[in-house]
């Protein structure tokens, strides 16, 4: 069972209270972009074994979106943070480095 702390309302919500929003920190490529960039934005998703960044929505709770950093293999949660950011904040990256030295994810480390 995955339990995430919702940074919007402060509740520790279990997975069944949440709606998954897929991979986090995608760059949107729209009209005017190259076919490759658009295809990649639309379809190409990471499916790592280990450190991953995701969007979640507290669907049965406060209704807000937020970000979560976790390990897909162990379900260890490194932290959750605001949806209003385009990359993981330093505190989250440091928390991951402590548990998974040398981790990388889409060029972030």
């Amino acid at each position, binding site marked *: 069972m995955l339990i995430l702390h919702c940074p*919007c309302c*402060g509740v520790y919500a279990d997975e069944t*209270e949440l709606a998954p929003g897929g991979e986090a920190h995608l760059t949107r490529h729209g009209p005017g972009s190259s076919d490759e960039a658009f295809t990649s934005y639309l379809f190409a998703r990471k499916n790592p074994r280990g450190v991953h960044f995701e969007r979640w929505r507290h669907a049965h709770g406060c209704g*807000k979106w937020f970000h979560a950093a976790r390990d897909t293999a162990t379900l260890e949660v490194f932290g959750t943070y605001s949806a209003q950011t385009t990359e993981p904040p330093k505190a989250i990256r440091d928390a991951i480095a402590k548990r998974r030295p040398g981790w990388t994810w889409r060029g972030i480390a």
Partner: protein
Amino acid sequence: MSEPVSALNHAAFDGLVEIEECGLQGMIILRGDLSARAVRSAATGATGAKMPGPREVQTNGAKALCWMSPDELLILCDYSFVAQAIEGMNKALNGVHALAVDMSDARTMFRLTGAAARDVMAKLTPADVSPQALQPGQIRRSRLAQVSAAFWLEDDMTFRVVCFRSVARYTFDLLCTAARPGSDVDYFNAPAAP
């Protein structure tokens, strides 16, 4: 003129706890920046209740302010007072980016009363309803089986539950099943050790 009735019109059940649909209940949703002075004073002015902090309920007699999210309050009042309350708030919110809407007929409220109230709720929700996590004056939005619900404790033995009107019967049936005599859990309501 048609007579307004609530979803289940005071349906009641007596089991491990007493369950009652509360009938017509004024419910106003106020959305806006809850840290904005105008929004706060509109809410407190309409109810006379204090501004609730995150996950809190502040009551003043039959009126209450429930914190639903960082930009949403549920305002409780008499069903007959709703129009007047909204009019007052709209005046106070003139020019402010906020919205007060009458949701009374879109929602249903239940009351659960009895020493086993926490045990009954714990059968239906993944939320922590232990005394350590939920005390009178605190509200939790979560789910009851398959539907969303908000609930809080009026006192140590009384839960209030709010759900969508469209799932009122489903929610009532859930609560009744969880409160069926003989299905005691006696976890939070454990009998004193001999």
